[in-house]
């Protein structure tokens, strides 16, 4: 199956560009209790764009904690604290740009589209990835130390560019290969992680940055005052709904992911979404915190979604990964995951 399709895939991806964006990112986590210590820098990073040189900012609230992904300029704003956990590596965002032929056979978008061309090969090369989907695009974050492996793995199928000061500079394997070349090839068998499918419906939206001030109070309310004291800080897997809210402001573009509950609090005419008003269901991956070294987690989910041509958003956080799939496809996705869970046992 895979072999047959690989020829096609190559043709389709020949017109694809992979851009290594000019951001050096840190992945951090703020504990629920410690949020109060970071209100000032977060407000500054979200609302006062002129006061900060941060160009890449993403804040995702999960029941466990707040995941903050931001570039080094933004990271300077966060004071070290016992409530702030920082992943040691520098992450580089990759972005796939289709170049030319728009007539892709697949209607599916997002992670699904790059599952086979990027995510699967990286998983095979044992490159750990951190996904961040937004309304506008999908960012694939890789550790800086893995860059040479990434380039050598993907350069067959992509024209790879590194963006430096606004210019796109072509990158070749030899330019970066003087580091560590290949990650270890041991630990072939990936762990199959448990999944959780909460009941709430999500929407992915955007916003004109100029109108950000007019939703500021609502946004502050949702971000900082949502977890009422009555709520149990420890999430229980059996719960029907899971708190999930994501805000990102990347290169001037705003993206919001929230459930319909939260969405009702915003003035409807300001938020953009698709005209069809599609809704999404979430698949949370991981029973316990996943860490940052395991690879193949995204691939586990995206591969079968791609096989079934189902669109998906994928948002990694400090503890768990989250995939968003169309509401109408959730049944088949559930079945598929169920099937996958049984399969490794049988094989």
């Amino acid at each position, binding site marked *: 199956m895979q072999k047959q399709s690989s020829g096609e895939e190559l043709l389709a991806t020949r017109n694809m560009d992979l851009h290594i964006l000019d951001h050096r990112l840190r992945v951090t986590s703020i504990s629920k209790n410690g949020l109060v210590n970071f209100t000032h820098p977060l407000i500054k990073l979200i609302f006062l764009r002129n006061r900060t040189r941060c160009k890449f900012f993403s804040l995702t609230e999960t029941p466990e904690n707040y995941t903050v992904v931001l570039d080094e300029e933004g990271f300077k704003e966060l004071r070290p604290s016992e409530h702030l956990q920082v992943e040691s590596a520098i992450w580089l965002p990759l972005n796939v740009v289709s170049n*030319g032929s728009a007539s892709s056979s697949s209607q599916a978008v997002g992670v699904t589209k790059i599952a086979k061309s990027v995510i699967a090969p990286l998983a095979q090369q044992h490159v750990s990835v951190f996904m961040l989907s937004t309304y506008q*695009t999908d960012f694939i974050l890789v550790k800086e130390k893995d860059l040479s492996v990434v380039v050598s793995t993907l350069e067959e199928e992509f024209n790879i560019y590194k*963006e430096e000061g606004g210019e*796109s500079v072509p990158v070749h394997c030899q330019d970066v290969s003087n580091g560590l070349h290949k990650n270890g090839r041991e630990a072939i068998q990936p762990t199959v992680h448990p999944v959780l499918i909460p009941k709430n419906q999500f929407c992915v939206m955007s916003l004109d940055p100029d109108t950000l001030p007019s939703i500021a109070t609502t946004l502050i309310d949702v971000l900082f005052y949502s977890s009422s004291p009555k709520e149990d800080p420890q999430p229980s897997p059996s719960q029907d709904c899971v708190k999930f809210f994501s805000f990102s402001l990347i290169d001037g573009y705003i993206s919001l992911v929230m459930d319909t509950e939260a969405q009702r609090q915003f*003035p409807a005419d300001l938020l*953009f979404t*698709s005209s069809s*008003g599609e809704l999404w269901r979430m698949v949370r991956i991981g029973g316990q915190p996943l860490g940052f070294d395991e690879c193949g987690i995204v691939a586990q989910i995206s591969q079968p979604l791609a096989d079934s041509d189902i669109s998906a958003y994928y948002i990694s956080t400090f503890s768990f990964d989250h995939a968003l799939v169309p509401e109408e496809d959730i049944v088949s996705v559930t079945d598929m995951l169920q099937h996958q869970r049984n399969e490794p046992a049988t094989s």
Partner: protein
Amino acid sequence: MSGSKPDILWSPHHPDRYVICDSELGLYRIGPVGSTEAKAGTLPLSEETAATLLAINSDTPYMKCVAWYPKHEPECLLAVGQANGRVVLTSLGQSHNSACKELVGKEFVPKHARQCNTLAWNPVDSNLLAAGLDKHRADFSVLIWDISSKLSPETSVAAEKIRLSSVDLDSSTVVTKPLYELGQNDACLSLCWLLRDPKLLLAGMHRNLAIFDLRNTSQKTFVNTKAIQGVTVDPHFHDRVASFFEGQVAIWDLRKFEKPVLTLTEQPKPLTKVAWCPTRTGLLATLTRDSNIIRLYDMQHTPTPIGDETEPTIIERSVQPCESQIGSFAWHQSSQNRMVVVSATNRVMTDFTVFERISLAWSSTTSLMWACGRHLYECVEDSAEGVESLIEKDIATKMRERAQSRYGHDTVQVWRNHLLAGGKDPQLKSLWHDLFYILSVSHMKQCAEDMELKLQGNVQSVVYSGIKNIVKTTSGTTESRRCWSGSDRQTDVPRYHSEERCLALRLCGWISRGTDTDVENFLRSLEQEHEWERAAAVALFNLDIRRAIQILNKGAMAEKGDLNLNVVAMALSGYTDEKSSLWREMCSSLRLQLKNPYLCIMFAFLTSEPGAYDGVLYESSVAVRDRVAFACMFLNDAQLPRYIDRLTLEMKEAGNLEGILLTGLTKDGVDLMESYVDRTGDVQTASFCMLKGSPGEVLKDPRVQCWIENYRNLLDAWRFWHKRAEFDIHRGKLDPSSKPLAQVFVSCNFCGKSISYSCSTIPHQGRGFSQYGVSGSPTKSKVTSCPGCRKPLPRCALCLMNMGTPVSNCQGTGKSDEKVDLTRENKLAQFNNWFTWCHNCRHGGHAGHMLSWFRDHTECPVSACTCKCMQLDTTGNLVPSDSS
């Protein structure tokens, strides 16, 4: 544009209407101040124009961009791009039953909402409206809508699905299916349709410029660049495109799209608008944020880029249409260089016309032209009279006229040159007379040995060196007291004589030959010229009162004579040497009231103490030569050089050409001439004058060479080539070192030797080939073969005769003609025999044959040679403006 930042659009078809859009749309009509003044609510835009608000449309909130429908009908249809990506058609100031009724209110909704950055109507297929949107991970960023599209049934289905939008959509007016979708997973920041083909759309995408072809949407041409904002095609040059990024504008040539042909100097602040002027080629206006100036780049003279290295020149300048910071501007579609500017806040508008740069040119004659925009002006001053005289006074005009009247070329009667110069300038008159006397004296010395021996050796140089040097060497001066002629009264006036003084008098023109001190000839010539007062003064200074009185009487009786001269004669006749007489007293006081300087000095002489003649010597309106002659007669050896030195210095400082008499053609003379040229610019006189000077020191002076070269250039600029040639000949005679050596030789094809060198009959080598075989001499003209190797010379391409054979139509140059001065025809015939050939194709022949061939042909006479020889000769088609 959202919120505070406004934009302006001119109506494509009404030259007096424009729309300002900020938070709402406002339609204005612009008109002259006078017609709208009475009405309330008009806004002055400039001293002459004012605007009236016609309509306001605030139906469309969150406007991001606006585009005006390009066609006549329906007029005033606007497409508005909103923050959520919807494009709404709206209208302003239209009655509701107008043609666009079914279009107004129509909405075009993208699948995924995001900001609409730009809109562009297709200029030809005006149903097509391109919208550029922000990035969405799954959607396209360039959507081309067909505004006439019938609403598809799916739209209503889609509309039902809209759950998130609070705006109640009337499903009948919403279009969700674009005609074309381009640029997946990308952002589009600017768009424009290419004028060279309406199927091509240029889009400024995220990090690249892309050209989409609607005939094959799966392909695009693109170039990676940062400069992706504000793409705009030059309306006068459809391959030229401007785009910008932050403070830098890039100019692209679509035929060579790999990189910008040119980037303009970077501005410190980010640009907000860049627009080509629609009424003038190559003029680009740019505006930066928070600025009150508009920067203009004139690429008018930019050559079409050929090589990579050619960085074209552009002229950059700034204009400031108003005091306040500019929000936006828009060029008027048809009024030349006109724009309306709107301030960043308060919507203050200004009507502004960019003034064209002026280029100015003087012709080599007196006319002045300047060009401004599409106009060419010739300078004419109002008062024709004043101009005439001004132009006449101008030295360039004078020199031009004098060159035409052969000024400077009379080498026999040198003094006549001042008549050739118009005869009006006393300084020139004096100069040429000085030169005449100098030359005639020196000439005389050479021929007739009537001078004392001691002067013989250096007479040439002494004569040339002027009176100043002559009187320095004076020796053996004798003193004499003569009687008043016609009376036996002894004068107490001592008069001095010496060889040098005598020579000086001759240079002054008072006496004509040898030691003869008789001034009678001189007096007669003065009488002939009706210079009565001067003649009388000269007679008086020669102590001949009677003669002086006679002259004055004659002058009074002559035609148009001044009867007052009789009165003067009367006064003169009463002369008495009584020191304390009434006559003396009255004359010395009343003489100052005499207008004529010569009459004045006559009485000054008579009333002065001997040796104290300041009244005569420092009367500046008396000619220098007369004062000098007087000084030579009446000042002693101590006084004379002092006086002469003082006068010389005065003349040098004033640049007075009369002083040449004193300085001669020496270094001093060059100094004097220098201040004359500084004062007048008359290099012509300076050149001719100094050519007469001693070849050694004077002509080698760099100043003299400079005057001569400038005069030659001037003649060339006037296209007085014949005059220039004459001048060169004249110069060559006087200064043989100025003759250029031969620089061109004709060498034999076979032996390689110069055919003119080996021609032993020619005494010198100058002008090699011109002398070769062209003079009328039969012996020379028979040379049709190389004198070195005896091989024949090449043949003329037209008559097929060997070169060296005279051209056939030049017959009858017999021996008798040779002696006669060559007529114009003969000279021409000589030229007809010259060798000439094209340096490109190397074909040629007799000059006369070639000239007549190219009168009717453009190509080389040699068959199968397509060389356009004559057109390669840049000067070949110019005509000299002097006819001789």
